[in-house]
């Protein structure tokens, strides 16, 4: 119930941001489409973990900032490799997945892919298989730095569940 309410709130905010026309008739159409989407997603049984409002904690902006710094760093590194392609040494790395929730695992895989230099190839309950461009790109992943950061991010949702 709480998740459904939060999903509606999110959709309403999205609609208001995209529409830009605030006349009664248009607003009613927006409300109707909102109800339709919420009904459809309830029918598809996809309202769940990721619509939990506690996902949006104060840790999320901090994590995004940290991820942005990581993305810029690894971008610079890969950009350097583009100009000297003979220096690459592509490798497969396997790292354990310490997150408990499936949402945390998905965030782990996606963040790994978002930082250039590492691409998630396989992800299951226990481990993540990634393709890395060279040793330095794989370092954040192998040292467990990225995983630790996401476990920290995950910590905010656990208390309330």
């Amino acid at each position, binding site marked *: 119930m709480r998740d459904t309410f939060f999903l509606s709130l999110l959709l309403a905010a999205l609609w208001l941001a995209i529409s830009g026309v605030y006349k009664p008739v248009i607003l009613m159409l927006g409300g109707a489409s909102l109800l339709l989407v919420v009904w459809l997603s309830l029918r598809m049984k996809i309202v769940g973990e990721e619509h939990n409002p506690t996902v949006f904690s104060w840790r999320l902006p901090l994590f995004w900032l940290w991820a942005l710094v990581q993305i810029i760093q690894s971008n610079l590194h890969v950009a350097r490799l583009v100009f000297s392609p003979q220096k690459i040494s592509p490798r497969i790395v396997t790292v354990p997945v310490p997150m408990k929730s499936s949402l945390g695992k998905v965030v782990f895989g996606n*963040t790994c892919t978002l930082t250039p230099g590492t691409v998630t190839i396989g992800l299951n309950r226990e481990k993540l298989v990634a393709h890395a461009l060279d040793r330095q790109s794989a370092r954040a992943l192998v040292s467990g730095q990225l995983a630790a950061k996401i476990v920290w991010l995950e910590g905010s949702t656990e208390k309330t569940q």
Partner: protein
Amino acid sequence: MPDWLLDVFSGALLLIGGGFGVIGGLGLFRFPDFYTRLHGAGITDTLCAICIVFGLALQSGLSLLTIKLLLILLFLLFPAPTATHALSRAAMFDGVEPELAEDSESLVEHRRESSSNT
């Protein structure tokens, strides 16, 4: 902040974004095999898009246009890893072999295992 400074910042971000776009394109073109090319595509999907969108957002200030631009960035950044992961997984199961350095793990033992969807 004075207007000209804002313009300088936004222009710099735009040019950096464009530059990284070209670098990513070059990477996509020059790297030797499919998996390494994904990294080149990754540059254009992340830093290039981030810089250009923030450069444009600086020009319109706090308005509906900026919100829409940030939404575009959101819709570019969230599906991009999913698409890349789907691609690399499909390629792996289809038997596309990566060129690997000598001291690397091999891909063969991972291929048979099923992996969950993002």
